[in-house]
């Protein structure tokens, strides 16, 4: 199946520089939030610009079957005029009737919580307000695909919260959202799909991002996280609202029989898939009542005789679980 944006064998470099991007395959589905994560300079922004059609790849194909497709830059780049004029501009240049502009402007401003700042001079907004205005200026077009470069970096917490809520609502309404971020918490909370990048390439994610909610630990010294699928896992005791439990795949120990150990989480599961990642590592997808992936070496696969349908135990410490 092909998604709204499909990339194949993409290579990109600026003239006279080494390749910046090399993406073998990427297909993004409708109504999902994909989050690019990775170090500075790993190519997140460049990939977003290629997807937005602002940069032309040197080789490979980028297919877009969605319109409109809008990129919101990290620097919001608002026009030096009022907030309302900024947000309404994309409709104005399309000669949309004034009445409809008014309606959609109100909706867009309300969505990002800037309705009270419509007449403010855009350059005088705070960083978070600017970013929200830039997002409103994009979403007023009802984009099929919304690309955002670091929308939650270096801005105030309430703005981060607003932007995350807006992106969830948009995705629920069918907009495909692709964003990059440094902010891992934001990434885990939002991502339907994590796309880690290393030196211009997409690499498989080695993190299980489990949805659910943390239970109140009360006086306990260990916390519990209720997964959407039902099971409960042990995690560090922490107060607050957490909706994601993140476990690195390398932190999960697989064993043929039940182990006695200090680790609090022992889960019986069935091997769903055995997937060789490279000459060293193999990814094992387990069904433990919820999907859980582990990464082991080829040698372990041989020793444990892991194959589809095998029964194994997955063991990990409560402290290996990170809450977001």
């Amino acid at each position: 199946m092909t998604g709204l944006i499909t990339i194949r064998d993409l290579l990109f470099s600026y003239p006279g520089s080494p390749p910046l991007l090399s993406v073998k395959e990427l297909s993004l589905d409708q109504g999902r939030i994909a989050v690019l994560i990775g170090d500075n300079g790993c190519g997140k922004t460049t990939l977003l610009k290629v997807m937005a059609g602002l940069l032309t790849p040197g080789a490979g194909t980028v297919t877009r079957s969605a319109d409109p497709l809008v990129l919101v830059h990290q620097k919001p780049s608002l026009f030096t005029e009022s907030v309302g004029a900024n947000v309404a501009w994309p409709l104005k240049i399309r000669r949309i009737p004034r009445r409809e502009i008014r309606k959609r402007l109100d909706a867009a401003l309300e969505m990002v919580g800037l309705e009270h700042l419509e007449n403010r001079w855009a350059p005088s907004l705070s960083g978070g307000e600017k970013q929200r205005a830039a997002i409103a200026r994009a979403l007023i077009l009802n984009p099929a695909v919304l690309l955002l470069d670091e929308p939650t970096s270096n801005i105030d917490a309430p703005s981060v919260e607003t932007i995350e809520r807006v992106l969830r609502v948009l995705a629920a309404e069918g907009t495909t959202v692709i964003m990059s971020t440094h902010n891992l918490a934001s990434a885990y909370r939002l991502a339907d799909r994590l796309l880690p990048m290393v030196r211009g390439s997409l690499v498989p994610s080695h993190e299980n991002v489990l949805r659910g909610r943390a239970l109140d630990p009360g006086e306990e010294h260990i916390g519990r996280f209720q997964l959407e699928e039902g099971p409960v896992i042990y995690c560090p005791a922490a107060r607050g609202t957490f909706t994601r439990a993140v476990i690195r795949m390398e932190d999960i120990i697989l064993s043929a029989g039940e182990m006695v150990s200090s680790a609090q989480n022992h889960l019986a599961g069935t091997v769903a898939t055995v997937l060789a990642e490279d000459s060293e590592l193999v990814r094992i997808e387990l069904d433990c009542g919820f999907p859980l992936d582990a990464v082991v070496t080829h040698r372990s696969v041989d020793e444990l005789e892991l194959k589809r349908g095998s029964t194994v135990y997955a063991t990990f410490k409560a402290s290996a679980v990170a809450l977001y």
Partner: protein
Amino acid sequence: MNREAFLEAFRLLSRLDRELIAITANSMHFALASTLIAAALGIPLGVILAFREFPGRRLIVAATHTLMGLPTVVAGLLVFSFLSRSGPLGWLGLMYTPAAVIIGQAFLALPIVLSLVYSGLTRLEPELIETLITLGATPLQRTLKIVREGRIVVASAALTAFGRVVGEVGTAMMLGGNIRWYTRTITTAIALETQRGAFALSVALGVVLMIVSFGVNFGLNYMVRFRTAP
């Protein structure tokens, strides 16, 4: 030069002497028209230079920066050689008319407008143009928006050009001929009226020119401050 000349100069100023007004009007007329021509050509060209890649672009930019300092008499000589009756455009009969002065001053103003618009616009956020593209603006809509976003840059470029041509004497003299009522400007009058002992008029015209220059500089300072304000 003596005290009476100064007193007479202020008398001329205070009763808006007809010749004083006429000469000032010529200066304003020529500088304004040439600046408008230079702006009409220089602003779109500046946008193209700033945002389009094409062969020879760097050369044009370098040439433009060099021509900013074009000596006025060289510009005058160049235009003279074209407009003179013995030149290729002599049949137009423009030599020693206001049109000739305006053309010459437009030659001086164009590199200034072009160069300042170009360098000012390249200093706008690089994300701006990408934002305009991604929001679906047509090339024309993009250009208009960029000029609007860079309006301070564009306005100060035009004002700088105006300031330069209103105070130049080389082309106005060579192409206009300092013809009374017709092509006599503040600068040519000051340069030549002094010779026939018309000190008072020269002093009065000098005061007018200083007021104009002051206004231009005040405007520029003001805009630069506004632009660099956070």
